[in-house]
């Protein structure tokens, strides 16, 4: 594990990631919650029990073969530490939680940001799902050509 408590971000190799063959045509949850904290809504919200945890202070682990990509865990996670990744028609697809204004528009082009907030490319917003009834808290799904970025795109920036 890299020195994430010094830098504030994980490296690609710190994250347990599904095999890319297994991602074709589906979305799968990845967790970037690596520290023992008293929290469990991700596991509780999963309809297929794909997230395992040893007690409330345990670290969540996703069973990639069981996950159906419903996004419940992404919507509920207070640490904004759950993401969805997948491959659709050859393109990389990532869903990230997003709670900033302005919200991106569906179909618009946005910058793809990595864990340090650096722009690493551009993608197209293919979906926006509200997670709070009355608030602008959403899950943004972006698609992009460069599938290498699946492992590192964890935020977006609206192009002004």
């Amino acid at each position, binding site marked *: 594990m890299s020195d*994430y*408590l*010094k*830098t*504030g*971000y*994980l490296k690609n190799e710190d994250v347990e990631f599904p095999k890319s063959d297994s991602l074709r045509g589906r979305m799968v949850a990845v967790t*970037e*919650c*690596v*520290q*023992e*904290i*008293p*929290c*469990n*809504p991700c596991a*509780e*919200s999963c309809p297929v029990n794909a997230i395992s945890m040893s*007690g*409330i*202070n345990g670290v969540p682990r996703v069973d990639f073969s069981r996950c159906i990509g419903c996004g419940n865990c992404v919507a*509920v*996670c*207070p*640490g*904004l*530490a759950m993401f969805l990744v997948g491959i659709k028609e050859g393109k990389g697809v990532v869903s990230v939680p997003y*709670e*900033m*204004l302005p*919200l991106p528009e569906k179909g618009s082009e946005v910058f793809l*940001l*990595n*864990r*340090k*907030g*650096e722009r690493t490319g551009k993608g197209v917003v293919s979906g926006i799902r509200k997670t*709070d009834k009355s*608030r*602008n*808290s959403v899950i943004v799904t972006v698609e992009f050509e460069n599938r290498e970025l699946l492992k590192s795109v*964890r*935020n977006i920036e609206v192009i002004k």
Partner: protein
Amino acid sequence: MREISKHPVLSFERGKRIKFLFEGSPVTAYQGETVAMALYRNGIDVFSESPKLHRPRGMFCAIGKCSSCMMRVNGVPNVRTCILPVREGMTVERQKGLGEKPSKAVKYPPPVIREEKVAIVGSGPAGLSAAITLAENGVAPLIIEQNPRLGGQLIKQTHKFFGSERENAGKRGIDIASEMIESVKKAGVEFYLNSTAFGFYEGKTLGVFAENKLLKIRSKYFIFATGAAEKMIPFEGNDLPGVFGAGAAQTMMNVYGIKPGENVLMVGAGNVGLIVSYQMLQAGINVKAVIEAAPKIGGYFVHAAKIRRFGVPIYTSTTIKKAIGERRVEKAVIVSLNKKFEEIPGTEKALDVDTICLATGLIPSVSLLAQSGVRMKYVSALGGYVPLRNKYLRTSLPNVYVAGDITGIEEASTAILEGEIAAYSILSDMGKDVEKELSDAISELSELRSGPFGAKIVFGMKEVQYE
């Protein structure tokens, strides 16, 4: 303009516009905000000057705990303007030094005496949950709150909470606050707002200054849920307006819809510093950096990751050296630290910021208890002096209970459970059959504290818990 117009999670309901006089000139405010917020919204940073060196002073804590915002209001000096609701036509002046005597005699009505079963001081998560638990079991408590609203610091927590599914995890603090406030009101619990408890005499009588009248509250039981105050740390220029407690910045943004500044340096990478930085991004404020004196981020990693992915740098082993500015912060100088926490010469860096937020820890607000002779102990793991108590949260005075940050700095979820425990303990002392509820709450609390982040608290508790 310092007003936040659009916000992803909050919508601000602003009251009707009213006018008051500041240094003889009219200032526009919204009904329902405090004098300090109205002034700050209007671009006024300097509220008073220091007694000897005449240095400018502004607000620091924004919740009535530090006295940095004292001004002369309607001729009366030393009024904490951060908790005083603004009223049409009031006159507000900058205070010079320690303040001059009122220009004309102020008349107060005779004191009101109240006899209560249970009085609760403070209406944050601990106080509210105690009140709800008592009311649900047929005991109506009286709540004393020094701020203009119920809910303590919960009303500014816009983020979703951690914890277990049963204890509100995944819900936003503001929503938990509204639900709790709703329950308290529904249960018909009586409360005094804008009311400061200033003295606690022999564990029996609480003196309260409630908006121009004196209350003497005698009660069979008391629950102190007074919370905590933000710590100031020493550095040159730390008294300049624009240096705020991180919680104060949060109050400004999330309760009153006011930006504390445009470019901010956050000092401290514990949960408070990380969470408030994220909330600043949501309010459209630029966070230039988060610095942390320790070699590691102290808060939850997930909170750090949230701001890093928006490009906010976090510098560990770094501290603030000085704040520079004439009437408010214009620059901050930061410096790297070696393993012994000594400054490394030549590593100073100046940042263009107009605001410095201190998230360098909290101190339990215990002064009322200390005054009344409750036994205390200094426990650094808990944030400072804390009252000795048993696991039912009873202090060395048998009718006095404590809950929330006053028992040691923790979080809202544990404060809520402590409020329940204190209330059930009192109910059980009154002879009600609540043994099961009491032991359930106690075991749930110990489960929340069972991880590595709870270890420090558990360690500290050993120092102050007696059988």
